[in-house]
């Protein structure tokens, strides 16, 4: 029984280009208070464009209706549970949106005089300190724009340290449960990838690992808790092993929501790691970004951090230090996704140290509660204790003809965003469920009910599940057709 949704009318809406008509206006500029300039004269005729072919012309009311209508076609955290495993889709406090728009912050130009940027620099410095405290690391750069960007930065840092010791080495070891960004990053850093098979409990196999750790190995990229949501029981042995061979350990911090306030990577031997502020620290995903991927390092790696670095004078004034001879260089212009950093700091301030710990505890409680409720109905391929997420396999349902992707689509009818489908790769047909701490018992119970009900539907009427979703304005979308002959921009129908 579907308890959580009822169908309701939603407005159709054409593309912006299809409601455009010449001469409609959504803007007005102030009257020009200087003489107009003849563009052809100023720029040369060849440099001046014709009108922008096909560009929309709509009025203000059409703009707001267009996007408001479109918005009603989306699911969102603000509407309900969004249990995408590995994505940590938690509540995005609105106060953070407000403070990020504080005038002196939102309108600060990155090149305005340092004397007139002290507030922004202070925020940056405070956040660096707090992230160092949370991770147990020695220094933090806030420059990377997202997790993958942080990975690149972190691996470059490792490489720079090894290089400074005379040999950057050749290979990065990456467990087969890792996220795709890990191997992709290795390539960008000029490293070969050696996959490490997980053992049958989902952990890195120490013996297997030991075989691969040679003098050619630059390091290990590990995710802890791993992508199946378990804490690597041998983590200190693993880091010791790598260190004993002069290699370093990078931690993908995507799953820090399981650890904040409870355990610190710096304390279990991690050399460098990134955080996803858009996961653990609640900055909004916004349909795909922006994020921020700060990188935290141990002392030995600090000299290599991207420039510029913050420096505090004796008079307690901040300045940017560009004179860092060993730096790997910038990974982006300016100082990072500052607006995202503001939101993350506001989040940390709201929780405080104790609140962060309690958030972690609730996140882990929620995942284990769901695991407990769902275990009778779904196959749990790895039964090591779960942290912030739990991963089931569709093996039982596949026997009746429905895969994880089908159940995911049917969940939509039940009023939920699906879990992460088919990742991590080590789980056949994975259902990767991460509720986060910002879900109450009621929403979790409804979710478990829904999945259990779907499991029953599969026994009774698998076809119904295979054709889901049934209650959305857009039924199952043909992704194959989209990729076969890509249409990636609108064209007027005459042209088409």
């Amino acid at each position, binding site marked *: 029984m579907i308890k959580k949704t009822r169908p309701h009318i939603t407005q159709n809406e054409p*593309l912006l280009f299809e409601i455009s008509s010449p001469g409609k206006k*959504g*803007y007005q500029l102030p009257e020009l208070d200087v003489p107009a*300039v003849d563009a052809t004269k100023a720029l040369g005729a060849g440099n001046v464009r014709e009108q*922008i072919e*096909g*560009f*929309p012309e709509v009025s203000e009311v059409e*703009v707001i209706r267009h996007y408001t209508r*479109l918005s009603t076609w*989306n699911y969102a*955290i*603000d509407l309900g549970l969004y249990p995408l495993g590995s994505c940590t889709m938690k509540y995005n406090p609105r106060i953070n949106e407000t*403070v990020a728009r*504080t005038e002196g*912050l939102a*309108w600060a130009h*990155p090149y*305005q005089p340092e004397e007139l940027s002290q507030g922004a620099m*202070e*925020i940056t410095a405070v956040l660096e300190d707090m992230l160092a405290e949370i991770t147990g690391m020695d220094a933090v750069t806030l420059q990377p*724009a*997202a997790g*993958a960007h942080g990975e*690149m930065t972190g691996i*470059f840092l490792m490489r720079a340290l090894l290089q400074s010791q005379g040999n950057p080495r050749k290979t990065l070891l990456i467990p087969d449960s890792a996220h*795709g*960004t890990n*191997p992709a*990053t290795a390539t*960008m850093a000029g490293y070969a990838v050696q996959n490490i098979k997980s053992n049958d409990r989902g952990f890195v196999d120490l013996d297997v690992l030991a075989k691969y750790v040679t003098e050619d190995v630059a390091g290990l990229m590990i995710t802890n808790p791993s992508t199946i949501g378990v804490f690597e029981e041998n983590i200190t042995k693993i880091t010791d092993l790598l260190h004993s061979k002069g290699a370093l350990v990078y931690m993908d911090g995507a799953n820090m929501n399981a650890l904040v306030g409870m355990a610190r990577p710096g304390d279990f031997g991690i050399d460098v790691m990134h955080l996803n502020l858009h996961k653990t620290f*609640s900055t*909004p*995903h*916004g*349909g*795909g*970004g922006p994020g921020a991927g700060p990188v935290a390092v141990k002392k030995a790696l600090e000299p290599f951090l991207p420039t510029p670095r913050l420096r505090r004078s004796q008079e307690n004034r901040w300045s940017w230090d560009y004179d860092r001879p060993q730096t790997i260089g910038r990974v*982006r*212009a300016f100082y990072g*996704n500052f*607006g995202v950093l*503001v939101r993350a700091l506001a989040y940390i*301030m*709201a*929780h405080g140290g104790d609140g962060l710990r*309690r*958030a972690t505890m609730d996140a882990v409680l929620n995942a284990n*509660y769901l695991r*407990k409720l769902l275990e009778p109905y779904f196959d749990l391929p790895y039964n090591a204790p779960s942290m912030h997420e739990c991963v089931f396999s569709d093996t039982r349902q596949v026997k009746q003809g429905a895969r994880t992707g089908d159940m995911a689509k049917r969940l939509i009818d039940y009023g939920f965003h699906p879990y992460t489908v088919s990742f991590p790769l080590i789980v056949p047909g994975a259902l990767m469920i991460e509720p986060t*701490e*910002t879900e109450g018992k009621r929403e979790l119970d409804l979710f478990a009910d829904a999945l259990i009900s779907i499991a029953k539907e599969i026994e009774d009427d698998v076809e119904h599940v295979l054709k889901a979703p049934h209650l*959305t304005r*857009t039924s199952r979308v043909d*992704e194959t*057709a*989209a*990729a076969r002959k890509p249409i*990636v*921009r609108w064209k007027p129908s005459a042209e088409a």
Partner: protein
Amino acid sequence: MRYLPKSESERREMLDVLGLDSIEDLFSHLPEETKLNRPLNIAPGKSEYEIVEYFRARGNENAMNYASFLGAGVYNHYRPVMVDTIVSRGEFLTSYTPYQAEISQGTLTTIFEFQTMMCQLTGMDVANASMYDGSSAVPEAAMMAVRVTGRNRVLVSRTVHPEYREVLRTYAQHQGMPVADFGYVDGTGAVDLADLEAQISAGDVAAVVIQTPNFFGMVEDVKTAADLAHKHGALLVVAFTEAVSLGLLAPPREADIVAGELQSFAISPSYGGPYAGIIATKEKYIRQLPGRIVGETKDTHGNRAFCLTLATREQHIRREKATSNICTNQALIALMATVFMSVYGKEGLRELAEQNLAKAHYLSEDMDLRFRGPFFNEFVIRTEPEALNAELLKHNIIGGLPLGRFYPELEGCMLVCATEMAKRAHLDQFKKCADAVGQPAMAAARNEGARA
């Protein structure tokens, strides 16, 4: 804690289901040596009111109520109210990457519109749905060119934003992708085609990277650069930092790849980010594009629908063979740009660009311009940068960017920008101060005089 939607009794019920005494039990399997056995050294949680006050206080420590003539990659344009109205809707703000197309058509449709408008603006065939920013779009574009051409070298003009060039070098350093600069013409501030030709002739060049309007604000001759690049089998990458210029300037159609920054499209300066980069290119290179792409398709009922497509380029499918490691991008910021473009539209974007042109040209009158040639809303003057900026600050005006920092040979030069936000009174004030301060030579003479 207000973000935790559970009462103690609900926690108790859940623990009972789990057969546990306390939540701590769920952490008991962590090896003892990994556990943090003290509270985090972070102050107790604060109320909304205190948080608002904290950030206000920090904001007040930054420049407040100054007029500004800074550009240099970050521009001071008006942000229509519609933009925040729309991106603040929870349905856009708090959704994830639109993997589940059936409940993400809102986001997917806006991205499709974004891609279309990016193509219309740049004259390219296809565009991705955002890179981190312009500075990281440039190296990604260069990497694309490497994949497309099978060559390795990258030549980048010194008139490309200096920080973008730094980022390009960082990205390139371990990818067997040597990067070399080529120069600009001293009189015009535009790319030195002779230097480019000399360097490109050495062969193996995958990409030539230029920017227009370039870092000095000068409009580059894209066609000639393209011809030169193509003659030598390289791709031309055209970068832009001032998207508003595309309202008036001929689009860089002759480029193979366009890599730019959309900050000018209603994205607040925000001390350097978040912004949104894009890459647009020719149809034939689509499978080498990094980042998200949305495509049109149909649902089972035949309704038009959109979905993420060509995922086989991406890290989650291709892993170490992906076009890039990018995953999270700048979707919401790209939506800001999309709304901005919707509000201004065809006529508005042009009128906006014309106002920028007019303001900058008004400001440039009677100034000692370092370069001669067409410029958009930025230009370089000869002055005593520090003295001028100090003088301007007295009038609550933040001046331009002293160029010596990035170009030793341009010590005594300043990059100045005027957008539609610059008021005539401020423009006049700037001129007055610039007059008063004069150029280094004049100032030196003045000092001489004073000493004599």
